[in-house]
Structure formats: structure tokens, C-alpha cells
């Protein structure tokens, strides 16, 4: 290999390192701040806004005022009716639950429904019959006819509408939520999140 070839090889090898060196290291950002990415579908900021707008709607409506405090709720159905497979509905629901629970306004049961379930409540009811455990404690500390029955059930749907023309496409997303009184089956509250619309030019 002559000197010129060696020089070219060195330049090629050195230049291959440049992109790696130019890759900026990851940095922490404010997840909903100006640096947050806006995606074609639902992004994190959208989910945060949904949880906030739905909590506001529920509290401003005042329908909870007619129930004793804390009002006991269960989450029944969480339906994703969009074509997006991986919408993190737990992020929205979890925040709504957490906001409602403050001041002991609402409590959710972990024994029924479809969100934040704890199967150990039911499993532990068998402990009094298990010779391994202290029978007295097992009776005292497990649900033996003591589990709370919910008053209201919460249901949610993620909905979408898609439209396009020759120049652009638009995706619209909403979260619909309704609360049912389990004693009489009446829907006592129903609301929509703010609509998130994403426009993409060139479709």
C-alpha cells in the first residue's frame, strides 16, 4: 500500500467517526415543554391534557356531590376504538383517579373492573384455610365479607376520526368518559376530553 492509499484510508476511517461524535448525548427535558415532540398521533402532552380536562369536567359538573364521601368507584371498561394499537390509557386514567382521590373525595376498589386491579385481595381470602398462616390474623386481615361494594362505575373510550383531501390529512382524537350509578344503572355523568387534531400536509 503506497502513501497516498494509506492517507485516503486514514481520512475515510477518521471521517466515519465524525457522525458518532456529532450525535448529541441524551438530555432531560420538560416532558410537556417547548422541546417535547409533537407526533402525528397521540403524544404524551395530549394524554396529560386529556386527564386534566376530564377531571375538570367531572369536578365542575358537581355530580359527585350527591354521593357520600368517599364515593366508591370501579373502572369497568377502557376501550380503544382507534387504529392506534398502543395508546397508554393508564396514563390518563391513573391521573384522573389520582386527582379524584385527593381530599378523600373518591376511592376506587382494586377488586373489580379493569384498571389497577389487585388480585391478592381475592387470593388472600383463602388464607384462613391455609395451615401455614396464623388463622386469627388471616381472618382479621383478609376480606371475609368485608370488601367494599362500589357505588359508581367509570367507563372510557378513545375515539378517532380521520379525514384527508388532496393536500393534507387530519386525525382527530377524543376521550369519552361516562359514569354509571351501579344501584340503578343510570349514567350520572358523561363528558369528552378536549379534541386533539393533528394535521399533516402532503398526507
Amino acid at each position, binding site marked *: 500500500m503506497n502513501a497516498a492509499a494509506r492517507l485516503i484510508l486514514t481520512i475515510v476511517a477518521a471521517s466515519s467517526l465524525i457522525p458518532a461524535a456529532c450525535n448529541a448525548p441524551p438530555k432531560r427535558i420538560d416532558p410537556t415543554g417547548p422541546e417535547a*415532540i409533537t407526533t402525528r398521533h397521540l403524544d404524551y402532552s395530549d394524554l396529560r391534557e386529556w386527564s386534566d380536562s376530564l377531571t375538570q369536567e367531572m369536578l365542575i359538573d358537581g355530580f359527585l356531590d350527591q354521593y357520600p364521601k368517599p364515593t366508591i368507584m370501579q373502572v369497568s371498561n377502557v376501550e380503544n376504538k382507534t387504529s392506534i394499537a398502543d395508546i397508554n390509557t393508564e396514563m390518563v386514567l391513573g391521573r384522573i383517579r389520582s386527582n379524584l382521590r385527593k381530599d378523600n373525595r373518591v376511592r376506587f376498589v382494586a377488586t373489580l373492573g379493569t384498571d389497577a386491579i389487585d388480585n391478592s385481595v381475592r387470593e388472600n381470602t383463602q388464607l384462613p384455610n391455609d395451615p401455614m398462616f396464623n388463622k386469627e390474623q388471616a381472618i382479621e386481615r383478609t376480606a371475609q365479607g368485608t370488601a367494599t361494594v362500589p357505588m359508581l362505575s367509570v367507563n372510557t373510550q378513545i375515539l378517532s376520526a380521520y379525514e384527508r383531501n388532496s393536500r393534507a390529512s387530519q386525525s382527530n382524537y377524543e376521550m369519552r368518559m361516562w359514569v354509571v350509578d351501579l344501584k340503578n344503572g343510570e349514567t350520572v355523568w358523561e363528558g369528552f376530553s378536549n379534541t386533539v387534531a393533528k394535521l399533516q400536509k402532503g398526507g
Partner: protein
Amino acid sequence: MQPTQTDRSSWLATLLVATSLALVCGSCTSSNVYETENARPNAIEFKSKISNSSLKDKIDVVSVYVGQASGLLRVQANVVNGSDYNARYMYKVTWYDGQGLKLPANSDFWTRREMNAGGKDEIAAIAPSGKAADWRLEIRPWDN
């Protein structure tokens, strides 16, 4: 070669036409607003600290109302876009208890909004807990 008087005149004319076009297009999407005269008379007094005066020229809080819902403090800031262009902004409301301590809140995040030129809008928030006694609103540009 030095520019002639004719060159300068035509350059000025082009600039004038471009500026006029920009102004006309800027007001194309403006809103017309109609409402009750002297609407919402019970606004509270508030204090502001303006670090971004160009943002204030676009989005400005003109009045603030405070109330209650389900035993929780509720605040509404009425904002206007006084510019000739649509404005994109984000806002965040932070809540404090009676001693001035910040309340842990899921609502502590930036919400994105867009407002038409000449438009009016409301920023509404409800306190995360009955312990909330005070609030702070921050507005910043949304350029993304």
C-alpha cells in the same frame, strides 16, 4: 455600478407591496368577537411579571376570575390575542396552600393552545385539592 434612482424606487415599491400583502394575509384569519357589554364584571386584581414583552403583545391576560367547584378553588384567566397573527402558546397553572407551599399536582404541566388574531380565550383550571388557596399562571410561546 451604483444603483439608479429608478432602481431604488422599484425596490421601495416592492417592499411596500410585500409589507401590505403580509399585513393583509395576517388579518385573513382574524376573529371577530361579540359579547355582552361590560360582561364578567367581577374580575379580581392580579399582578404580573413580564419577561417576554413580544409574547405579551400577542397573548395577554386581561382579567382573572376565581370561584369554587365541588369545594375546590377554580381560576379562569381571560386572554386576548391583540396581534394581527395567530399565536401559539402554552400555559401552566401551579397551586399553593395557605402557607405558600406548592401542592403536588398532576396538573403541573404545559398545555398547548392556538388563538386567532384578535381572538379571545379562557384559560381555566381547577385546584387539585381543597388545600389550595393560591395559584400562579405562566404563559410561554409554543414554537414547536
